[in-house]
C-alpha cells in the first residue's frame, strides 16, 4: 500500500469510527492538526484512534506523552503505521 492509499484509508476509518458527520475524506487536510484546531478531536477520540491503529494495522500505541507527535495529523499517523505495521 502506498502512503497516499494509507492516508485515504485512515481518513475513512476516522470518519467512520469517530462518527464525523458531513465530512468527506477530501475535507480532511492530511497535514492539519487533528486535536484542538482542525478536526477538533479530544482525549476520547485519541483512545478511539489507538483502537483504529491496533485493530486495522496491528500497531500498538500507548496513550502517553511520547505518543503525542504521532497523533498530530493524519500524515503523522500514516507515517507511524508505515514504520510499525506488521
Amino acid at each position, binding site marked *: 500500500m502506498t502512503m497516499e492509499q494509507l492516508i485515504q484509508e485512515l481518513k475513512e476509518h476516522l470518519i467512520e469510527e*469517530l462518527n464525523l*458527520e458531513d465530512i468527506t475524506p477530501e475535507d480532511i487536510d492530511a497535514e492539519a492538526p487533528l486535536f484542538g484546531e482542525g478536526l477538533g478531536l479530544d482525549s*476520547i477520540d485519541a483512545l478511539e484512534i489507538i483502537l483504529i491503529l491496533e485493530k486495522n494495522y496491528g500497531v500498538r500505541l500507548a496513550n502517553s506523552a511520547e505518543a503525542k507527535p504521532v497523533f498530530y495529523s493524519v500524515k503523522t499517523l500514516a507515517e507511524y503505521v508505515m514504520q510499525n505495521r506488521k
Partner: protein
Amino acid sequence: MRCFVQRVMTDREVTTDLKQLIPDAAMRRRMSRVVKMAVSTAVECVGGVEQIDGLDTILTATGWGCLADSERFLRNLISEQEQLLNPTPFIQSTFNTVGGQVALLRHNHCYNVTYVHRGHSFEDALLDALMRAADGQGAQMLVGAFDEMTPSQHRIMERMGLFRTWKDGEGAVFALLTACQTEHSVAEVAGIDFPSEGLDAAAVHARYATDERTKVIWNDWSIAGCYPTASAQAFRKAVELIEQGTPEVIVYNAYQEASPAVIRVRWVG
C-alpha cells in the same frame, strides 16, 4: 411546597433542527438516539441553547438510562472477549449523560442530579425541584424524563409477559419550572405525594382534590406506551387540561408493582 410550570414539551413536539439545538458537532457525533432525543427536547423546552445559561437547576429522570449504549458496550465486551473495546458507548451509558450534556452545551455549573428510581424517577426529580424552589434556589429549573426502547429490551419485556395489555413505549418530556409565578406560568405544581398503598379513583379524589371539578388522570400508558417514566407524559397532559380550563388535575401513577406516586397540578389564578 410548590412551583410553576412555564412550558412542558415532549420529544414529538420538537421542530427545530438538531444542529441548531445541539450546535457542537463533537458532542452530537457521540450521542446515541435517546441522548439526542432527550437533549433536543430539553433545549427546545427552555427556548434555545442560549437559554441554558439562565438555569439554576437541572434535574433528569430515567428508569432505564441509556440502554442502547449500555447494550452496545456489553455486546462488544462479550463478543470481543474483553479486548480492544471502544470507550464511547461506556462513557455515554451513564445515567447522568443527558443532564451532563445539557450543562456542557453552555458550560452551566449549576445543581445537576439524575434520579433513577424506576416508575418514580420523574416524581422524585419533581420533588427535588419543589425543594429547590422552597429553598430559594429554583428560579429557573429544567426537569425532564426520558427512556428509550431497544429491540433487546422489547424482547425481554415480551418474555416477561408485560405487553399482554399494553404496547411498549419510549419518550422524553421536559418542563421549565420556576419558583415564582410569572406572566408565562401555565400551571402550578401544588404538591407530590407517595401514598403507602394503592388507591382507587374515588380515594384519590377524596384525598387530594380541592375542587369539585378536579380531574384525575391515571398514568395508564395510553399516551406514549409503557415505559418507566411515562408518568411525565401524563403530567404533560395534566398541564394541557389546566390550559383548557380544568382548575385542578391529579396525576396518579402506579408503575408495575411499585407503590404509587401522586402529582397535584393546579391552574394559576
